[in-house]
């Protein structure tokens, strides 16, 4: 495995089913210890990408590599490098959790002694140690998610691909799952996580990829995505009191675009506006506020919200679809 460079990388990855293009020139890269949030509406091409990465599907063109190994040409090697948790659990009847994990450990070729130790370790890591003697089919959804995570960790893969790991979990389990994923990243595992619970994803991801109709629409950190999606930034001015809000709006008016809407939020002592002006011009706006002796406590850019970014992409995709 190369010591530097991305652990997971796709270059111009394309998958066609007849004339239908499921994936169109997707290029992403995830470094060691990073978590990539992979989001998109249903049918966007997320599962197709994941299936190519885990060796269950072949790309029509382009390449996908894990630790430098081609996913299509060396699917067997890939299986040892990746841990994959699909959105379905895949249980076997009449098997206890310990037996279930022991089987997958044996399937991955772990030695008998190592396996016994490893099963206990991964159950502990996933917070599922007390489920070992329970029948798999009797587990609740949240318990199954934990066992599924334990299963993906059994062979100590370098990268994990988790399809909807937080789906159906209660708030406490979701928080615990979040901690678990961050812990795995801290241990040097590279993760690709898909989820529809965007605030949850925003909290753990180093990078995000938004995909619609098989095309990558936005990719990078949340701030980068915000800039990619819109030239407009949201600026927030906080005052020490709500009495001066109207005067602050008046002072800011000449410094923003005509179309831009300046809104006062008395409950938060805040004024917000959206603008495409560069930092130098915004510095002039701040100077004007200070010059007018307004009690400014903060003048800052509001971070783009992942939900907002996703909705922007989805809306532009709908518009493009309608035009087509």
């Amino acid at each position: 495995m190369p010591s530097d460079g991305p652990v997971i990388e796709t270059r111009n990855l394309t998958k066609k089913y007849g004339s239908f293009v499921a994936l169109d020139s997707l290029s992403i890269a995830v470094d060691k210890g990073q978590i990539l949030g992979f989001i998109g509406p249903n049918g966007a091409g997320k599962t197709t990408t994941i299936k190519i990465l885990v060796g269950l599907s072949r790309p029509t063109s382009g390449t996908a590599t894990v630790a430098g190994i081609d996913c299509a040409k060396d699917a067997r090697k890939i299986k040892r490098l990746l841990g994959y948790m699909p959105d379905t659990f895949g249980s076997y009847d009449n098997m206890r959790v310990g037996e279930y994990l022991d089987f997958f450990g044996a399937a991955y070729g772990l030695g008998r002694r190592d396996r016994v130790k490893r099963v206990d370790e991964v159950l502990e890591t996933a917070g599922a140690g007390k489920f070992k003697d329970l029948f798999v089919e009797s587990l609740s959804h949240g318990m199954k998610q934990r066992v599924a995570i334990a299963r993906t960790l059994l062979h100590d893969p370098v990268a994990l691909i988790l399809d909807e790991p937080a789906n159906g979990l209660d708030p406490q389990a979701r928080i615990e799952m979040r901690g678990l994923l961050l812990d795995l990243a801290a241990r040097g595992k590279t993760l690709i996580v898909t989820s529809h619970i965007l605030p949850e994803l925003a909290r753990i991801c180093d990078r995000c990829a938004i995909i619609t109709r098989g095309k990558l629409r936005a990719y990078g950190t949340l701030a980068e995505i915000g800039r990619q999606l819109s030239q407009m930034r949201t600026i927030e001015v906080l005052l020490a009191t709500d009495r001066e809000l109207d005067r602050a709006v008046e002072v800011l008016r000449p410094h923003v675009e005509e179309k831009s809407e300046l809104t006062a939020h008395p409950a938060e002592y805040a004024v917000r506006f959206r603008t495409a002006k560069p930092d130098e011009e915004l510095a002039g706006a701040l100077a004007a506020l200070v010059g007018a002796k307004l009690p400014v406590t903060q003048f800052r850019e509001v971070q783009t919200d992942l939900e907002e970014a996703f909705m922007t992409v989805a809306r532009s995709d709908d518009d493009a679809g309608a035009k087509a």
Partner: protein
Amino acid sequence: MNPIIRRELLELLRTPKAIAAQIALAVACALLVLLRWPASGVSDLGGARSLQVLRVFGYGLLAGILFLVPAFPATSIVRERIKGTLALLLNSPMTPLSIYLGKLGGTLGFTAILLAVTVPAAAACYALGGSSTSGGVAWLYVVLGVATFQITTLALWISSRATSTDFALRTTYGCVLALALLPLAPYWALQGEASDLLDVAAWLRCLSPVPAVMEVLGHAAVGTHGLGDTGGAIGKFVVLALVFGLAFAWATVAQLRGRPLDRSRAAGVMTQDRSTGSQIFRRLFFLVDPQRRSASMPLFVNPVMLKEFRSRKFGRGHWTLRLIALSAILSLGLCTAAAEGAIGWGIEIIGGALVLLQTAILILFTPSLAAGLISTERENGSWQLLRMTPLSTGKILRGKLLSVVWPLLLLLCATLPGYVFLMTIKPELGPQVVRVVVSLGLTAVFAMLVSAAASCLFRTTAVATAAANLALVGLCIGTLLAVIARDAPFGKSTVEAILTVNPVAAALSAAETPGFKDYDLIPLNWYVVGGASAVLLLFVMVRTRRLSRPD
């Protein structure tokens, strides 16, 4: 109209498979009649020929109902529960009774349509004359209709209590076969004796549809001895089967009215966590202790094979051992009985009974063991996980097939003491026994590969099991019906040619069972069955490789 009937019957009828099934059945019945239709102006006034056709036809339909009907109701409720749609149905304004009637109506409706397709052929037999033995063709349909009701209600009850589709299927097939055969045993043992129990046994016997169909087809006296009264089986069966069916219908509705989804599976106390006394007791009296923490899988054993043993309810070690023990006891019991002269049978009849016992077990249990090998994995989403492991397709397939081979091999070995006993009584039987054992071995391999092929071909275990049963029953039991039609319409050479493809016929012929003694089927039958098995194995390998390849 009940929306469940609309979904389960009308939508099924629109599928090409349903249309193909109806056409195939109609064509098969028409061919059967055409074979016997008088070619010249001479008609068979006695009606013997039409009765022969009706017999082949009637037993074929009964076998079809016993082996095909259970597959669909057996998975009907349990599949809804697994998919989560049972919760939606129970939460809808539909009552448990209407849900049940919908399920029952769907299965009965489709079976009724299939039976209706065969009516013109049966009517032709009636028109040829001679088929009014016990009320005519109409009674055949009444009996088959009631049998369908009886089997469907039993299967739906099992389905309402089962937690997995393959458990429901295996249990249902086991119960249906027990229902068809076990009630015959007490009457068969007691007949000819002046005993009060005989009346009870005569009623009990009529719980099975077999005596009623035999009476309709003029075979009421077949297999009887002494002065037993075998009449009235049809009426008794109709009454008993309706009572039986209604009881199971009530039990299923009660189950649906209760809380069918409110159940958890307790892990129980693990043996290792029990007291020392309890651990010693369990070690002494349990062949395989299901509560003992399993040891880690050894690396030299195929993990897929061990997984199959651990995850199957029926095929788990303790059940397999019980079945094998039962087979060994039955096998030895039959031989001991013959040896002591308690039963005035010959060695050939004992040998035939042994072959039939093994064949029944093989034909019944092999599809239950092998038809879900791949389809169950695909149905519950674990096939994707298996594909993700570094296990090669060959290793997966080997493990799956070995998990069927071992129980079948042990089953075959369980009856070997019986054959050894026969050889001790009559040493010259040695070569004959070897031929029987080889034929039975081939039957087992063939049944396993047919079932495995169905498992690769179909996505759901219910359809795969039904298809495997259809193929095996058609080939191993359907072709045996040709023996009934020997000399009319088929000649000996035709019957022999038909039986050449049947491994069971070869085993019966090798055992020199009465009725099969005259046919010279070995070694041609071995080549045919061996060749077919090789082709099936190749198909299974190619198909499994294709299923595990990247899309």
